[in-house]
């Protein structure tokens, strides 16, 4: 997915709101717009690919498709924990790139209204560089992830 199209989608989301899938990583609540998500599956046997960055855990077989998986903890620089039966792989599709995101657990899908979206945090350090905006609804703070940045950069 090229940058222009992605930015267009972001602008549309900011203007109209939309549905996001909530999940937790290291007890923090994160969200991804559901239109990037194709499915959510449990943890699978992962084939290691040597000589790639450590956050790329390898590839999995999803119905005959070979899909690379990214451990979101490792991507954020948070210590990894062993996978358990709540560990999920969220499969997202960004244009031609299909990738699985390993997260601690998946929560629910919520609808976000435009007025609940707060602007991007100003100072970008390593731990929050993937956060696109902050969503405040039902007195809870949720962090909306910048999927493109998470996967592509």
């Amino acid at each position: 997915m090229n940058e222009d199209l992605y930015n267009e989608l972001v602008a549309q989301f900011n203007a109209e709101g939309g549905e996001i899938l909530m999940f937790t990583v290291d007890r923090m609540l994160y969200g991804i717009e559901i239109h990037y998500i194709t499915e959510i599956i449990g943890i699978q046997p992962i084939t290691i690919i040597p000589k790639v960055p450590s956050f790329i855990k390898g590839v999995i077989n999803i119905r005959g498709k070979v899909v690379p998986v990214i451990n979101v903890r490792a991507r954020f620089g948070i210590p990894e924990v062993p996978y358990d039966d709540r560990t999920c792989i969220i499969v997202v599709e960004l244009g031609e790139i299909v990738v699985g995101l390993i997260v601690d657990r998946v929560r629910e899908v919520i609808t976000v209204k435009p007025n609940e979206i707060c602007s991007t945090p100003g100072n970008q350090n390593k731990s929050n560089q993937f956060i696109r905006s902050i969503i405040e609804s039902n007195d809870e703070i949720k962090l909306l992830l910048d999927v493109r940045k998470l996967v592509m950069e």
Partner: protein
Amino acid sequence: MASFEAGMEGMVEVFIYESTTLLEQLEQILMRTESNNSFDDEDINEIFRIMHTIKGSSAMMGLSNMSALAHSMEDMFFIIREEKPYIISIQNLYDLVFTASDLLKAEVEMIQEDNYTPTDFSEHIGKIKAFVAILKDGSVTEPEQTAASSEDNSVTEPIADDSDMIAVRVFFDDDCEMENLRSLLLIKKIKEDCLKLEYEPSDIETNADSIKTIIDNGFLIKFKPINDEKYILKTIEDSVGVKSYEVIEHNNNNAENAEALPGFIDLESNTESYTGLTDAESSESADEPLQAKTDTTEQTKPITNDSSENLELPKSAEQINNLLAKSQGSKGKQNLITVNLNKLDQLLDMVGEIVITEAMVTSSADLKGLKLDNFNKSARQLRKLTDELQDIVMSIRMVPLSGVFNKMTRVVRDMKVKLNKDVNLVFEGEETEVDKGVIDNLNDPLMHMVRNSMDHGIEDDPQERIKLGKPEKGTVTLSAYNASGEVIIVVADDGAGINTKKVLEKAKRNGLLTKPESEYTDKEIFNMIMLPGFSTNEEVTEFSGRGVGMDVVRQNIEKIGGSVSVESKQGVGTSFIIKIPLSLAIVGGIEISVGPSIFTIPINSVKESFKLNQKQLIRDMSGKEMVMIRGKCYPLIRLYEFYDLTPKSTDVFDGMVILVEGGGKQACLLADELIGEQQVVVKPFSPLLNRYNVKQNGMAGCTILGDGSITIILDINNIIQEQ
């Protein structure tokens, strides 16, 4: 594609596909006809039709610029078709059509981009219009002497009144001798009783060789009798030496000629034999109803650019081949359908899945220890069927290389003009088939190589060639053949060869040397020209010499799993040898395990595998390990070290050693275990992984095994180079 209205996207795709195909057809016609400098009516019609379609469809898409250009071309060919003007410079015509074709092609490509703005073609349209104006002026009757066109006006009208022309083919007695004189006498005899008379060969008086023609094909007389034809026929019959004669209905000419190859020749000669009436009839021709003219075009009447003096029957083999190729082409068309490549890809994926699933079912763990005779029988049958299915699907995707090769004729044509070098392009084995996915990636590399051969390979000065005893005209040969599961394509020139000294100097200047100059072998030096940023040509030309070409070639070929090597001999020539896998999709592989990972080595690269014994292992001074097999030393690559994995055992003697070959070099790989051999379906890596140079680290792709697990396919070439 933003400039199109909503709902048009689907049509844009069809439009692009259609236009590209048509333009390719156009180019083929042009290339074919240009090589023998002649258009026949069918070609003109075809070009006319192509332009007409493009005009229509681009107008429908709202692409008025393309439509206008196509329209002007259509007009031009309409005039050529209908008025048969005298074409003064056929080269100009070709240039115009080629340029127009290029412009349209470029435009079609641009449409596929996001921010498309229509190009202004008015300049070229202006040129075409100017040419058309010249054509119109020149459409006055011309004497027969020179060109294509001149026959045009003669071709039109004889057809109109040939209904009352009678054609007779006369054969003389076998040993009567002096057939030409006898023919002449015969003509003189019947001349008085004919309104009009033509005969073929028409040069019986002057050309002694015509005897042979008459013996072989008979003497063809066409006449329009004043009174009764029977009288004339009687005269013919009674002449001395006449063995037999046959009356040929002119309209049946085609059918009659179709019996043998010389049919073409006869047609050709018919055209010639009309020449006599040109002047008398030309005024009539203008008044002929259109109907008559369309009839003409339906018959295959080649308009040749050859001088008509050259009446000899044997036409160049090339032309006959052309004709044959054309008829085969049109025959083939009816049996073809066009399929979206994506669908074929899907089909192949599906078959890959079936192959894997079949293995999963038949080797299921649940079946272990059970005695299942019927099941095994059915399973074998299933296995056989899936194998066949796989073969068929693979064969569907196979495309002959001739398409890519033919595109090179165009490259050579352009280069010829620009570089002012005359070069023969020769094809060998262009019927060799390769997977469609491979073909698409061959175009650019081949183009670079052909350009390179023409620009750098062939000597600039023909005198140099003559001095070396080579023909003045250089030759670039494109050949292809199958060899052990690979397709080998060779681009060879008979030029100056690579000057190793020059290459070394240049490499030194560019800082590309990694060891002392004297240690480089010729082969290593040749391969230097494919390093990034290397170019030996003194001047940068439009075509090559920017030092990116050969580097890009290598990258592109490697992308599709192939390799390039160079062979050269000073003064004799240079060959680029491309090896590519027959298919990217399914390969035979050997599975090996290294610690937790399973790798697949393509079976083509595997020489042998064995357990090592003490005596075979050698260490050199720097601690590098070598394996000695039958008196030869090979470097040992421990895969677990190469990929930073934890193996079962680090002891060389516990593991399995596999001797592999890639890129002309050999090495031994150390793995934990050999698991087995299997046909595997190659899945390319996700673009996400490609960004981390997995390919450069010796991983060609991955594959899914019968139990659903994924293995990585190793790229032996890369591993050997990297270590």
